[in-house]
């Protein structure tokens, strides 16, 4: 049984998971880059892997896309064993790499036709499918222009389109919005949502918490090759409970800095950057009190930052670091 939240709707799925990962480990020499992760993805779910660069997200997605081998654990993709049935898995997945994996000298149509042929499409079926994907990515008008002439956003759309040409059951998207302007980013989000509405399961890696919050039903927060928490977005935010106030004040030691705020209903610690970190479940209310205390105790406020409860604060709560540190 799977709990799936898709487009804001929570469903109970009785289908077996489309991706099932147990204690997956990947090492490069002595370095463990994926350290025993376990998770599953349900049919028709958008599942997010959120974490900073180097967290192990891309390695995980590369393993599940059959691009990389793994050292320990087991995994099934589309019900097929990842170690023994790679060719079968390749047929049912679409992979959109982080890099723009398109041929700039070829037109959009030629790029899609080439990838389609690689996946065994031909003749009228291929031509029809190429036209569908061109339409889906809104590149029909410029289909016969070399992709090298396209804007960054158009190239990204073509990159995604190339991963869809064979109508995959599961789509892996590895940070598909890196270097994309806000308009194209929204366009990409809309496409992903449309694909998901059609029933496609999507695994989406990102280090932008806004993207995970908008798109993903469930999110696994990764850091250092481990999954720190896995839940729906609301469930994860519930983990942190509190918002955070970062306060820059002159202080000689943690003890002296924390002392004036101890009577308040906040958890006060020193952040690694030397600022005072006040965790509170009522950020706005606490902020007024903090300012009042500072005024009363004659403490100069050098800087002030508010973080309302979101995936960023969850990550901070779990690791003590920010997503983009």
């Amino acid at each position, binding site marked *: 049984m799977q709990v799936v939240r898709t487009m804001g709707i929570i469903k109970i799925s009785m289908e077996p998971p489309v991706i099932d990962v147990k204690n997956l480990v990947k090492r490069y020499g002595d370095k463990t880059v994926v350290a025993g992760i376990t998770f599953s993805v349900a049919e028709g779910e958008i599942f997010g892997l959120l974490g900073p660069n180097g967290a192990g997200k891309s390695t995980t997605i590369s393993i599940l896309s059959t*691009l*990389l081998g793994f050292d320990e654990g087991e995994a099934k993709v589309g019900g097929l064993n990842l170690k023994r049935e790679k060719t079968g898995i390749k047929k049912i997945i679409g*992979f959109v790499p982080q890099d723009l994996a398109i041929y700039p000298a070829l037109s959009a149509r030629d790029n899609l036709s080439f*990838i389609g042929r690689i996946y065994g499409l031909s003749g009228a079926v291929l031509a029809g499918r190429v036209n569908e994907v061109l339409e889906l990515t809104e590149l029909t008008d410029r289909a016969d222009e070399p992709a090298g002439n396209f804007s960054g956003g158009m190239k990204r759309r073509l990159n995604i389109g190339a991963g869809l040409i064979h109508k995959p059951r599961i789509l892996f998207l590895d940070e598909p919005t890196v270097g994309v302007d806000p308009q194209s980013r929204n366009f990409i989000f809309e496409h992903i949502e449309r694909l998901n509405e059609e029933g496609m399961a999507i695994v989406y890696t990102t280090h932008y918490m806004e993207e995970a919050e908008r798109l993903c039903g469930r999110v696994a927060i990764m850091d250092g090759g481990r999954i720190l928490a896995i839940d729906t977005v609301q469930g994860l935010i519930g983990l942190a409970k509190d918002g955070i106030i970062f306060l820059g004040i002159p202080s000689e030691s943690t003890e002296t800095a924390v002392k004036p705020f101890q009577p308040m209903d906040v958890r006060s610690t020193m952040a690694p950057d030397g600022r005072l970190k006040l965790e509170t479940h009522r950020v706005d209310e606490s902020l007024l009190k903090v300012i009042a205390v500072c005024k009363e105790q004659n403490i100069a406020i050098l800087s002030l930052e508010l973080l309302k409860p979101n995936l960023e604060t969850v990550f901070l709560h779990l690791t003590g670091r920010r997503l983009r540190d």
Partner: protein
Amino acid sequence: MKKMVVNQIFALTWKDLKLFFKDPKAMALIFLQPFLFIVIMSYALAGVFGSGKPIRILAVNEDTGKEAGRVIEDLSRLSGIAVETAWEGSPITRKKAEELITKGRRTLAVIFPPDFSSVLEQSPAQKDRPSTKVLLMVDPATPASVTGPVLGAIQGMTERTAFTAQMPRGIDYLFDQYDMTQVGISRDAFKRKAQDSISRSSSSGEDKAVTVEKTTPKAMKMERFPDSFQQNVPGYTIYGVFWIASLLATSVLREKREGTFTRLVAAPIGRSVVLAGKLIPYYLINVLQIAIMMAASALLFKMVFGRSASGLVVTSLALAACATSLGILISALASTEAQASSLTVLLLLMLSALGGCFVPRFLMPPALKTIGLITPHAWALDAYQDLIVRGYGLTDVMPKVGVLAGFALIFFVVGVRRFRFE
């Protein structure tokens, strides 16, 4: 402000120096490549620029008299030529010389006929006096720049010996014209007779008692001596053909860098299919390249490509397989396009030089000549020369084609095993 700029420049310089000295491949390319190239090219070109060993000529002396021996002695004294009169302790025979040239052990042999001395000893006054031929047997792949001076030297030495041998006969002829007891011989008449006698001794043109003629071993079915295009085009063609390796390797590494290779590996096709898909188009381009180079040489330079079209096709196919497989190997060894380009330049220039594409291998020192055999270039060049200038056919070149196919197989297998798909 100035200090800050200086510090920034210093920091940038330090950073790039540090990066450079942390990259052993880059260091090898910068420091080792020119050194290796200097060493190889200097040794390879030593024969051409005169600082190397002399050109070796086999001397076959069938002469029953002593005159041929004198010519051979004179030749031995010439700098730049080393005359070999014996092989493994025995005097060299015509058959042995033919065998050594056919097998590619030597490239030149001078053969003095049995009647060499007796012809020279004939009186220049004799009517229908006999003549004879000294043969310079050559491997037709030997460039004219080598055979020309050797032929000239043998002609010069032979004529000098002939003149020296015939001069006494000329003097005899002069004095035979007069009764020396007779008084009042006209000074002018004597002078004319003396000039006639000397001219008979040093006869030229069709009257020459001894001529030097270039020939090839009978086993080589030569119809005529190759022209400069037939000698140069195969070497430069092979040199050009191998550059496909650079194109192929950089194409693979560009696909890896741009991510399109990842997309291919993620697709349901075998890894060997991915590599074959990379290799086949470049193989076809390579074959087309060879065809165009040969067609252009035939059309523009009226070059004749021997008698065996099938031999040329099979050799060219094996050569193209070698070049494209080398591209796969380079793409497996290099990590970046820049590395692949540099590695290809280093490898191809060295292989071409060692393989005899720039300088005939027989002019190289023996060690370098032997090392040349580890290059596919040497085998391909030899096969082409067999077909184009030595008049051989398909079956004759099959062993060399087999070696080329072996090189292709080794390059491909090692390349595939070392190839990083991840």
